[in-house]
C-alpha cells in the first residue's frame, strides 16, 4: 500500500484495512520507535480539530518523525486567497506525506489527485473521516477478539454523523447485526442503509436505547449537536433521551463495551467512566497506533 492515499474508507479493501489493524497491533506493543526519523509529515488543519491533530502528531513524534503545518487556516496563505491546489503543490515540496483536515467536502479527494505525495484525509466536512473508522474497527476487534457476527448498537445522531456512516459501511464486511437508535429526525440516511441492504444484513431501528442494551456487544454513542435542530425545545428533549448512566449497563453482556468518538457532552454520564465496560478513552489512544500503522504503511516502511 505504498503511496496509496486514504480519502474514503472504501479506498482500502477489507484485506488492506485488516492489514493496517495488524500493523497497529505491533505499534501498540512498541509505540516508540525511530522509523520515521528521516521523514517530514505535513499536518494541514484548515479547521481546528484538537483530537485528530494531536493524535496524528503524537503518532509521528513517537516514531521520530518531524511535523510541519498549521492548526487553523486563519494565519496562513489560505487567508490571502490561495487556492487549495497551490497550497497542496507547495506543501508537497516540503513533506513526504500530507495529513489534511478541511471543512470543504471533496477537498481530500481533490488533494490526493493533484499531490505528488500521498494524502491522508483527516476529515473533509460532512463527507469522510477514514482514520476514525480504522481506529473504531481496531477498538471493536480488540475488545471483542473478532469483527465478525457482532451486534453493534449505534446511538444518537445517525443522520449527520459521518463517523457513523463510514463505520456502518466498513462493518458491512463482517456480517454485523445493526441496532440503530435515534430520534426519527436523525435516522440513518437511505444512502448509507443501502449498503446494509445490499449485503442482506439485519438491522433494527429504535427510538429508545433501553431494549437494545442487553443484546449489544458494542454500544457506539454519538453526540447530538444543538445546531441540527431548528426548535431548541426539541433539542433539549432529545438530548436527555439518549443519556447513558452506570445503572443502565449493569445487565449487559460480559463483553459489552461503550465506544464514543469524543468529544462527549452529556450523553455518557461521568459515573460510567470507571466501569470496565467504558472503552472510549482507550479508543482514543488506539487512534495513535492506527495512525502510526497507516503512515508507516503508506510510506512503505511497513
Amino acid at each position, binding site marked *: 500500500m505504498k503511496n496509496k492515499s486514504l480519502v474514503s474508507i472504501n479506498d482500502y479493501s477489507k484485506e488492506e484495512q485488516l492489514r493496517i489493524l495488524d500493523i497497529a497491533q505491533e505499534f501498540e506493543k512498541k509505540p516508540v520507535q525511530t522509523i520515521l526519523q528521516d521523514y517530514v509529515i505535513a499536518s494541514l488543519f484548515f479547521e481546528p480539530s484538537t483530537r485528530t491533530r494531536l493524535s496524528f502528531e503524537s503518532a509521528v513524534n513517537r516514531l521520530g518523525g518531524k511535523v510541519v503545518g498549521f492548526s487553523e487556516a486563519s494565519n496562513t496563505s489560505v487567508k490571502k486567497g490561495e487556492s487549495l491546489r497551490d497550497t497542496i503543490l507547495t506543501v508537497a515540496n516540503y513533506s513526504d506525506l500530507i495529513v489534511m483536515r478541511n471543512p470543504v*467536502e*471533496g477537498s481530500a479527494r481533490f488533494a490526493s489527485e493533484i499531490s505528488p505525495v500521498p494524502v491522508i484525509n483527516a476529515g473533509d466536512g460532512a463527507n469522510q473521516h477514514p482514520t476514525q473508522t480504522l481506529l473504531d474497527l481496531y477498538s471493536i476487534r480488540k475488545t471483542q477478539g473478532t469483527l465478525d457476527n457482532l451486534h453493534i448498537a449505534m446511538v444518537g445522531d445517525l443522520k449527520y454523523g459521518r463517523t457513523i456512516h463510514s463505520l456502518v459501511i466498513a462493518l458491512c464486511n463482517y456480517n454485523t447485526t445493526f441496532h440503530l437508535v435515534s430520534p426519527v429526525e436523525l435516522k440513518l440516511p437511505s444512502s448509507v442503509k443501502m449498503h446494509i441492504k445490499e449485503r442482506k444484513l439485519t438491522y433494527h431501528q429504535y427510538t429508545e436505547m433501553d431494549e437494545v442494551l442487553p443484546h449489544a456487544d458494542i454500544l457506539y454513542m454519538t453526540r447530538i449537536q444543538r445546531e441540527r435542530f431548528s426548535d431548541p425545545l426539541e433539542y433539549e428533549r432529545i438530548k436527555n433521551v439518549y443519556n447513558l448512566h452506570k445503572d443502565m449497563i449493569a445487565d449487559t453482556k460480559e463483553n459489552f463495551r461503550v465506544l464514543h468518538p469524543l468529544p462527549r457532552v452529556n450523553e455518557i454520564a461521568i459515573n460510567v467512566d470507571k466501569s470496565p465496560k467504558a472503552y472510549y478513552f482507550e479508543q482514543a489512544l488506539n487512534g495513535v497506533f492506527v495512525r502510526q500503522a497507516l503512515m508507516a504503511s503508506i510510506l512503505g516502511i511497513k
Partner: protein
Amino acid sequence: MENKKIKELKVSAIENGTVIDHIPSNAVFQVIRILKLEAFENMVLFATNLESKKYGKKGIVKVSNKFFAPEELNKIALVAPHASIIEIRDFQVQTKTVVETPDRIKGIVRCFNPNCITNIEHIPAIFAVVDKEDTRLKCHYCEKITTRETMEFR
C-alpha cells in the same frame, strides 16, 4: 408523397445535419446548452410544445451541417433520456439512434452540494451515474448524490 410530408413539418427540414427528436418540452433549452449550440455558427432550428403521439408534448432541435460524436450526444440523456438522434444527408434520413446515458459525466453538471470543492475552486465536477433511469449522479469528490431535481448545468 415525399413533398407532402415535408409540408406538414412544423419545423423546416434541413438538408444536412442532425435532428434531435423526442426531447421533453422543458428540456429543449438545456439540450441547446449541453451541445453548446449557443455559440454555433450554422442554422439551428428548434421548437417546444409540439404534439407527440408518444409523449403528449415534445421538443425538437435541428442542427444543420453538424454531426456529433456519440459521447457528446449521450450527455443530453441526462435531461432527455428518450431522445432520438437522426442524421440527415440530402434531406434523407441516414441513421436513427437513441441516446444512451453515459457511466461518467465530467464538467457539464454542477454538484448540488454548495460545500463541494467543485463549487469552491475552479474544478470541473465529475460524477459516476449510479442510476440511469432516475438520473442519480454521485459526485467523485464530495460523494453526494445530485438528482434530476437538483441538477444544474454549468
